[in-house]
Every structure is written in C-alpha cells, then in structure tokens.
C-alpha cells in the first residue's frame, strides 16, 4: 500500500455489508432515502453533500459528489459557492468560539 487513499476503492463502498449485513441494509436504505427528491431537490441535496464532504474532508465523498453534482445539472459556479459555504461555517465556528476566549480573557484581565 503506497497511499491510504486509492480512488479505485470508492466503488467498494458497499462491501461494508459483507459483515453485519442487516446494519448495512438499514444504512443504505436510509442513505438512499436521504438523497431522494423531497422538499429539496436531488440537485440541492447533492450540493449540500458536496459542501459537507469538504467540511469533513472525505476524499471519497468529494470524488463521488463532484461527479454527482455534474450529473444533476450543476456547474463549477454553484459547486464553488457550496464549498465556500462549508468554509464559511467551519471558519465561523472557530470565530464563534472566540466569544468564549474573549469572555475568559475579560474576566481575568484588569
């Protein structure tokens, strides 16, 4: 093994079901239901998934959802904005915790 990540492994995603198959079945049923058209369209959900994939930094998900976004009729403009949403929330979460930092510093400081 020369790398922890190999794109050829992505299609093996469902092999988790070879053990504990009942749990895999529950997961994949739920997974497919999550991405079906609902109040949000499949395209909107796929863009959200792309953003989350960048937030959790999963290369498998980034690969799969980049392709899925294009196949749902999205484009680089939309996909880039989605990544920026992930970026803004991650950055914003750090900054929001700075409220804690400031509170403690103000309590301790003259």
């Amino acid at each position, binding site marked *: 093994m020369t790398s922890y990540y190999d794109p050829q492994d992505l299609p093996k995603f469902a092999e988790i079901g070879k053990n504990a198959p009942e749990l895999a079945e529950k997961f994949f049923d739920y997974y497919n239901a999550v991405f079906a*058209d609902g109040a949000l*369209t*499949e*395209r909107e959900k796929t863009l959200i998934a792309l953003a989350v994939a960048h937030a959790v930094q999963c290369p498998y998900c980034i690969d799969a959802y980049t*392709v899925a976004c*294009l*196949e*749902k*009729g999205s*484009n*680089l*403009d939309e996909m880039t904005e989605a990544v920026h949403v992930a970026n803004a929330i991650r950055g914003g979460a750090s900054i929001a915790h700075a409220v804690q930092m400031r509170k403690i510093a103000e309590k301790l400081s003259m």
Partner: protein
Amino acid sequence: MDIDETLRKRGIELRRTATTTLQINVGFKCNLACRHCHVEAGPSRREMMESRTIEAVIACAGRLHFQAIDITGGAPELLPGLPRLISGLAPLTSKLLVRTNLVALARPEFVGLIDFYRRNGVGIVASLPSINPDQTNGQRGAGVFERSVAALKLLNGFGYGRQKSGLGLDLAVNPTGAFLPADQAQAERRFRLDLERKHNIEFSSLFTFANVPLGRFRTWLEGSGNLGPYLKKIEESFNPCTVPHLMCRTTVSVDWQGFLYDCDFNLAAGLHHCGKKKHVSELAELPPEGTSIPIADHCYACTAGAGFTCSGSILQ
C-alpha cells in the same frame, strides 16, 4: 463486456419494430466544432447533401409514410438546398423537425429561414447544453452561450416556444463533459425557471441526451484520460428496460449521400442499415419488423440509466 454479449446474456435481441421516423443528416458542414460531436461536424467539412439526393429523399418520404421527419447535420441551415428539402417534405408528414445549434440560425443571412420554417409548420430542436455560460462555451466555443440566448429570444419573437403558438421550440441538452445527463424532468424545470427569470425566454420541452463515445467526443475522452472510465460508466449503467424503446427500432436514418442507417450514431460509426450500403432511392417499403440492427459498444450510451433517443430520455 461487449454489448452483444450483454444483450445475449439477458436473452434480448435488438430488432426493428414499425418504422415511424425518417431522420435526414444533410451533411457535416457546420459553423461550430462542438467537442461532443459524434459526426465531427465543423467549418472545414465539405460533405453536404446534393440536389439529386434531396429529391430522392423527398420521393422516398412520398412513397412511404413517416409520422415524423427530423432534419439534422452538421448545421442544416448551411445546406443551400434546405428550403427545397423542407418545402418538399412538409406536406408529407404531420411532424417536421429541424435541429439547430442556434448560432447558425441567428446569423443575419439566415433570419429569413425562421419565417420560412414558421410558414411550413417546422418544429425546431435547439441545442443548449447548460444554463451556465462557462459550461456551454466549454462544449461549443467562446461566446456561444450569449449568441444562443440571443437566438432563442429571436425565435420567441417569431412565436416559437410561446404557449398556444403551435410552434414547437424544444431544447436538446447534452452533458458538457464525461458524465451522464441530469434527470430530464428536473432539468426541464430548472431550465424553464432560469431562462424565464434571467432572459425572459420560453420553450416547449427539453430533452436530455447522453454523449455517445464516437467522433470528436471520443477523441476528447481519449485526450482527457476519461475514455476508459466513461465507457465503463455507460456499460455499468446498462438498463434493459430501455431496449424496447430505442430509436434505432423505429428510425430510418439517411446520410448526405443518401445511404441508409438505423440511427445517426450508426451513421457516424459507418454501420449501415442491414449491414450493407443501400440507397434511399432503393427503399421500396419500410424496413420489415424483426429486421436485425447492427450494434456496437457506442450503443451503451443509449441504454444507460434512463435511456436516450433523439426525443430525449426514454424512462422518466
């Protein structure tokens, strides 16, 4: 796995059913050189249908009844004999369609064609791969998106695509890369909302198509390192439910020289109808039901997922 073997394993034989459609490829000359073009049409091509072939096609349509006649290319607008072809065919069918890349149709020298189409009840099928300018221009060339929008507005001005005008303006949407198209109904909703909101453009229906790995698209796939994965994708997406509805079962395709095929993709691949060169002037009757259809691995593009015909997605 070869598509032959895929069909055989499922006990499927691809044979013709009743012929309903005549598709005429008037030649490969085009003002654009789109990257996904399966016939490699472009400005440097010289192949264009001559007058005697036009007359032979009209004679055939008069001998045999076709529910629909569909004119494609290249860019049909560039064929000098197009008005004669249309005026000859219009009385012979209830549905006459001409495909356009929009940029050709909006050229000043061809604007008169739009009124000619209107007077002859011609329906227009216009290529617009994306509502995103970068994607459209990436497939079709710099500036094409803006000129396509201008052409669509011009067509709306003549009544095409307007509700209750009776003048059909359908959009043909091919993916702008090595991926399968979006769901047709979802794409139609999105295009309709976006084109109306941003450009005040209306259209009748939208059809999605998979790109077929032939011609310039195949060359692009090879050069970009996408050929193997794309061929694998369309093979793995094989859907046996699409086979009864494939257009090769109901279509007779004629090339610029008058030779017959079962579809425009087989035309591009050089796979003649019944496996041998036969001229449209020799077609005395519609091909019998049960006639075998030549196939090759590019056919996986039409059987992938929802499946695709010249009228868009098969399963919706």
